[in-house]
């Protein structure tokens, strides 16, 4: 009984399906997430490089440009002032005019946010600052004054010098204008402006916390930085050498260029340059990639979240599906299991009932055997004998019987209708009637015994009329030995085989069975009398042996074979002959089952 053959617990198939569906859907989500991440990142970086930075650079450059433009205009105004020109031309002799000129310069500085302003005379070399002080006199031999002579030699109306002032940690733009004829200038006048405030503006353009925004020249010198401490340094201080080299080589004054590298912390950095229109400067932005794409973290988290939600949903869905849809299958299994249990219980019940029945029949067998003559009794009756008593079932309708009166002896072998329990019941009835007849009425007339048996059976079983409920009876062969040299045999559909010295004598009984409705109540059986010799062998058999099917054609065993066994083995001890009979029978039967009860009894008298 294998009740656990169909496991009802976790449905492994549904589990598998759930698992694979989850894998596929999560894979899809992750793939979509990854693709959108990559696309977005690419787009964001592209936007940063090509649009945001351009916007920043535009804004910065326009601020710087406008400042410088204004400074140029201021410088020009200063240069073209007639009073100033007159004052310079007079070699700064007119004190009254000087006051006016100085006032104007001072106004320019203070009023318009310039850090300084000045007039340097080409005639005297005097350097006048915004405070009206003569602070220096130009000398061609002083390298610090070299710029003055450069400006004069340039013969350009307006020139611009960018200078980083180490002491002030600031970058200054000096705009110089030539006073008077450019070929013979009277003086160099100009304004200086600090870009410190622009540097402060850089803060607002910053893209991320760790990004850098620098204004550099073509050599990589940092003029302006969002971090003032960077001012005056070179990018090579902050970037790997090779990167700097490659980057500076790639800087183009007209186009923006980009470069990405990994810094020594392994961070992916983007370097983007954007040239400024009004100067030779380039706006350089360094920004870690992860800051650029920082907001993409939300895509990552959302994708992860979607995966988890999907996983849970699918699991719930499949649990639902397996409960609802897969249920018929599960139910079938359950039903099957129930049925199997029922069958098992039924089988057990049947086995128990069968066992009871068998126990009961087994007991009946003991009763039947106790009624049949015992081996000991047969040993005392006969000099030698063998007995094959083989009911088809546990008990049967075949019987053997014997009765001894001093010298006289009665021996019978009978076959009651049916086999099994009904047959056994019949044997009980028959034997008790036989005993009754021979004890009380007649013992030396077998024919009469059979006739009386016929009558008694009919009466006992109420089979006197053709309308009787049952029609049971028996075949029997009955021998009477008078104790000297005479045998009387009467048979009801039964024969006696006698092996004498000379021959095998077969005495056929009458053709009518005993007790059956078809056998008349007054039917007379026939006595057959024979003289016997000591050593004669007598064989009685029921039709079970003769009618047993087998052999190549599945015919009955038959009398012929029976007689052949006798003639083939009569010289053996009877017990050995019995073995031959049994062996021959079994050989003939082969694989066939026993068809009827079988009894063969052979004996030699004392």
């Amino acid at each position, binding site marked *: 009984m294998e009740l656990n053959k169909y496991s009802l617990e976790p449905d492994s198939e549904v589990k598998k399906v759930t698992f694979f569906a989850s894998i596929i859907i999560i894979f899809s989500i992750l793939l979509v997430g990854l693709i959108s991440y990559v696309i977005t990142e690419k787009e964001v970086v592209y936007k940063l490089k090509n649009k945001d930075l351009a916007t920043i650079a535009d804004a910065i450059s326009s601020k710087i440009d406008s400042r410088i433009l204004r400074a140029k205009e201021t410088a020009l105004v200063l240069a073209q002032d007639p009073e100033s020109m007159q004052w310079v031309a007079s070699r700064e002799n007119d004190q009254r005019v000087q006051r006016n000129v100085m006032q104007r310069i001072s106004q320019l500085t203070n009023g318009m946010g310039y850090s300084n302003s000045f007039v340097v005379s080409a005639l005297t070399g005097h350097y006048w600052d915004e405070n009206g002080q003569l602070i220096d006199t130009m000398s061609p031999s002083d390298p610090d004054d070299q710029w003055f002579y450069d400006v004069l030699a340039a013969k350009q109306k307006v020139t611009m010098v960018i200078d980083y002032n180490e002491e002030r940690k600031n970058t200054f733009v000096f705009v110089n204008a030539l006073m008077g004829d450019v070929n013979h200038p009277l003086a160099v006048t100009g304004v200086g402006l600090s870009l410190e405030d622009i540097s402060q503006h850089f803060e607002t353009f910053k893209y991320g916390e760790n990004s850098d925004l620098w204004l550099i020249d073509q050599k990589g010198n940092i003029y302006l930085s969002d971090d003032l401490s960077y001012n005056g340094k070179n990018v090579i201080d902050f970037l790997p050498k090779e990167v700097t080299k490659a980057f500076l080589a790639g800087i183009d004054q007209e186009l923006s260029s980009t470069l990405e590298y990994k810094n020594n912390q392994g961070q992916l950095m983007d370097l983007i340059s954007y040239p400024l229109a009004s100067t030779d400067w380039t706006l350089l932005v360094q920004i870690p990639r992860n800051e650029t794409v920082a907001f993409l973290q939300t895509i990552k988290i959302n994708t992860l979240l979607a995966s988890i939600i999907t996983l849970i949903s699918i699991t719930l869905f499949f649990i639902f599906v397996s409960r609802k849809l897969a249920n018929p299958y599960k139910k079938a299994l359950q039903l099957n299991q129930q049925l199997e249990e029922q069958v098992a219980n039924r089988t057990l019940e049947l086995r128990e009932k069968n066992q009871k029945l068998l126990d009961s029949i087994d007991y009946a067998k003991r009763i039947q055997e106790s009624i049949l003559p015992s081996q000991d009794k047969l040993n005392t009756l006969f000099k030698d004998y063998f007995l094959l008593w083989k009911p088809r079932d546990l008990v049967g309708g075949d019987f053997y019987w014997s009765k001894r009166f001093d010298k006289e002896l009665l021996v019978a072998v009978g076959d009651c209708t049916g086999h099994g329990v009904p047959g056994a019941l019949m044997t009980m009835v028959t034997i008790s009637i036989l005993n009754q007849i021979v004890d009380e009425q007649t013992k030396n007339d077998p024919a009469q015994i059979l006739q009386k048996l016929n009558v008694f059976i009919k009466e006992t079983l109420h089979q006197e009329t053709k309308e009787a409920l049952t029609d049971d009876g028996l075949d029997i062969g009955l021998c009477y030995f008078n104790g000297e040299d005479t045998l009387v045999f009467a048979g009801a559909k039964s024969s006696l085989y006698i092996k004498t010295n000379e021959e095998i004598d077969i005495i056929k009984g009458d053709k009518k069975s005993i007790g059956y409705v078809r056998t008349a109540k007054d039917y007379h059986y026939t006595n057959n009398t024979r003289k016997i010799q000591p050593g004669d062998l007598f064989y009685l058999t029921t039709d079970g042996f003769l*009618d047993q099917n087998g052999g190549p*054609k599945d015919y009955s065993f*038959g009398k012929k074979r029976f007689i052949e066994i006798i003639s083939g083995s009569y010289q053996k001890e009877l017990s050995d002959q019995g073995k031959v009979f049994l062996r021959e029978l079994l050989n003939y039967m082969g694989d066939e089952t026993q068809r009827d009860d079988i009894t063969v009894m052979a004996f030699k008298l004392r």
Partner: protein
Amino acid sequence: MNKLHIEGSKSTPTVILDAEKNNLFLQGQSYPENAFKFYEPIFQWVDEYLEKLTAEVLVQIDFNLPYINTSSSKCIMMLLERLDKAYASGKKLTLNWYYNEDNESELECAEEFKEDLTFPFNITSRENK
């Protein structure tokens, strides 16, 4: 009248009772556990058939029963007695009992049946059929 056809088994004969052809056919070994139960429908059919049978019709009966156990032989006898009775009342019928020569008890058995009957009862060896 419906044909009665019972397929044979190891312990029961094939039975074909055909009212149209007026042929009663039994073939095979007969030793069922309960012979009366097996032969009961056959008796019923035969009773009904014989009742309707007219005098001018000849009924052909073919038996070939290699083994008949005691209770079956009683049933066969009951069947034969019904036929005998019908014959006595003027119906025409003839029975062919086929036997196998190799099977010694068959002929004996047929002869025993024949003894008690009056209608034409031919015992024929199967080899001569």
